[in-house]
């Protein structure tokens, strides 16, 4: 029996290691490629061990970029992506918190209708409404600046829905107690509802930050100035060079660096999640 158990353990671990390898392999290849010289990647066989051009490749992309592909230095694109992702995540959270607060705590005509209208927009992905949105943004003169990158994607039905669901689990007596304690609607929101939503906000921030970071189509359409390129669309530009083989080593270096901020956010915010899960505040 004991022997049997051991065999099963080994088999299980092998299976799991295989699964991990399957997920990690592409990432490893990307990292390895980012450390090679261009010729090594043209030979037809993909190297599996890191090469010697790690520092050279990364510093080249961070500092000067790749002018031949029309890509500015990565640091600039990373900065743009960061501004956009944080703007989108914070904006979405602020707006959906307010929208959910209005929908759950205030009685006004067509309240349910308004909620379902918001909810229905979930069915429409960015791609479907991209032309009218572009038209609106263009007429507002928001092409080629940060507000054009951020504002059109700032409303979130998903986040509104999640906050609504959370607010509805907050006991009604809490609001009534606050009213008796002399707190107006804004004070109740700020002093009680917001602190209670802390863990929800953290969770949503992670999800929305990654969503914002990974925006591709919209930045591609709305920006023409190199100064506003984001990292994800930058990678695409590096690949589509005219009349030449793309520099895969540099593309991969860019890709690895584009991955880092989202990973950092997840690692940092995960501690807040766990904290939120341990302290159930209700």
């Amino acid at each position, binding site marked *: 029996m004991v022997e049997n158990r051991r065999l099963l353990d080994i088999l299980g671990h092998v299976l799991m290691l295989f699964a991990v390898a399957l997920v990690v392999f592409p990432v490893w290849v990307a990292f390895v490629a980012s450390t090679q010289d261009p010729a090594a990647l043209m030979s037809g066989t993909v190297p599996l061990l890191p090469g010697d051009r790690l520092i050279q490749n990364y510093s080249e992309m961070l500092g000067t970029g790749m002018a031949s592909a029309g890509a500015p230095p990565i640091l600039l694109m990373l900065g743009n992506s960061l501004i956009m992702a944080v703007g989108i995540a914070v904006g979405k959270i602020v707006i959906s918190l307010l929208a959910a607060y209005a929908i759950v705590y205030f009685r006004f005509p067509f309240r349910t209708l308004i909620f379902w209208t918001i909810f229905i927009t979930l069915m429409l992905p960015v791609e479907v409404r991209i032309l009218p949105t572009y038209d609106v943004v263009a007429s507002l003169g928001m092409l080629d600046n940060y507000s054009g990158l951020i504002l059109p994607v700032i409303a979130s039905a998903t986040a509104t829905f999640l906050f609504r669901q959370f607010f509805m689990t907050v006991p009604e*007596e809490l609001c009534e107690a606050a*009213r*008796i304690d002399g*707190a*107006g609607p804004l004070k109740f929101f700020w002093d*009680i509802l917001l602190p209670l939503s*802390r863990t929800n906000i953290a969770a949503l921030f992670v999800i929305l930050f990654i969503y914002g970071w990974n925006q591709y189509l919209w930045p591609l359409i709305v920006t023409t100035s190199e100064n506003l390129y984001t990292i994800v669309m930058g990678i695409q530009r590096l690949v589509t060079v005219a009349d030449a083989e793309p520099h895969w080593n540099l593309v991969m270096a860019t890709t690895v660096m584009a991955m880092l901020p989202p990973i950092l956010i997840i690692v940092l915010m995960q501690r807040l999640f766990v904290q939120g899960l341990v302290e159930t505040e209700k």
Partner: protein
Amino acid sequence: MAGITIDGVRKVYPNGFQAIEDLSLNIPDGELVVLVGPSGCGKSTLLRMIAGLETISDGDISIGGRIVNRLEPGERDIAMVFQNYALYPHMTIFDNLAYGLRNRKTPKAEIKQRVEEAVQMLGIAHLLDRKPRQMSGGQRQRVAMGRAIVREPSVFLFDEPLSNLDAKLRVQMRVEIKRLQRQLKTTSVYVTHDQLEAMTLADTLVVMNAGRIEQAGTPMELYSNPATVFVATFIGSPAMNMLPGIVADGFFRVEGDAAGIQPMSLRGVANGPVILGVRPEHLQVGPAIGAGLSGRLHVISSEPIGAETLVYCEGPGSDPLILRAAGEATHRPGDMVDVFAPADRLHLFDTETGEAKPRLTAVQTVMATGPQPVT
């Protein structure tokens, strides 16, 4: 100087449901009034209207002579204790108690002093730095009371504050609430569905049913002289035995099968159907002594509960007749018992309106078990 006057108040919900109909009640300063009734009788709605959490459809509510109909709850100078305590989960106990005072721009030093006084009074001074989830139900209840006390309001409102506690704590907190209310002399309105809680706490007990006040008075008034069948059956446990019957030719006879209850001589009551009520504790085992209701009943079951034994006997209708016997009583199912209730312990109610008729005197029923008079 902060009594509550409720004048012709109505509450109609948007769907047309009338929760309170034309209700008037005067609560003198410093008194503890308990609203009691079955669920859905409007007692909580009335309390929430006093608090300002529900709008008033018609009529006026004034606190300390000031009409508060259109004032926000925070402006009414009231404090409320909720059934589920409604403590702010993310705040320490100190912050929970201080929150209302801070919103009123009370100076810091005064807040500290008032909170300390309140926690001393409630015996929770060692818990000030804890959060609500780190405390037991009884402690949370005390904090909820504390939050009301620090505000020094002119009215306390309690919305079934003890129903989430276990039986032992409930008795303990009940005594505590009574003590605090006596000490602070703050006008209080207390809602409960527990008639025992209601009887023990109330200065004035208000029994509500279907959005109306059935009767208001001291607990003992309501117990001794219930104004309606509803109050009679609601106050007291087990409930008052009700015997529908007919008065004719100077006698009261139980309707249908008498099940061993003797016709009772009854003078001065108009002929027609009536309901005769008698409390289990007034129905004694033994022969008739003087005037009153007597009979020989068949025991169905008995429940010894220590200090007393509840004996269930076959009654005239479908409901058993319950009587309270001494704790050591040994009536077995199948036994026959002689029972008797003296005339001054009987209640007569109008069958149609359910309203009480004047209490009986011994003279009216003097012929209790004698032969029927010739008419």
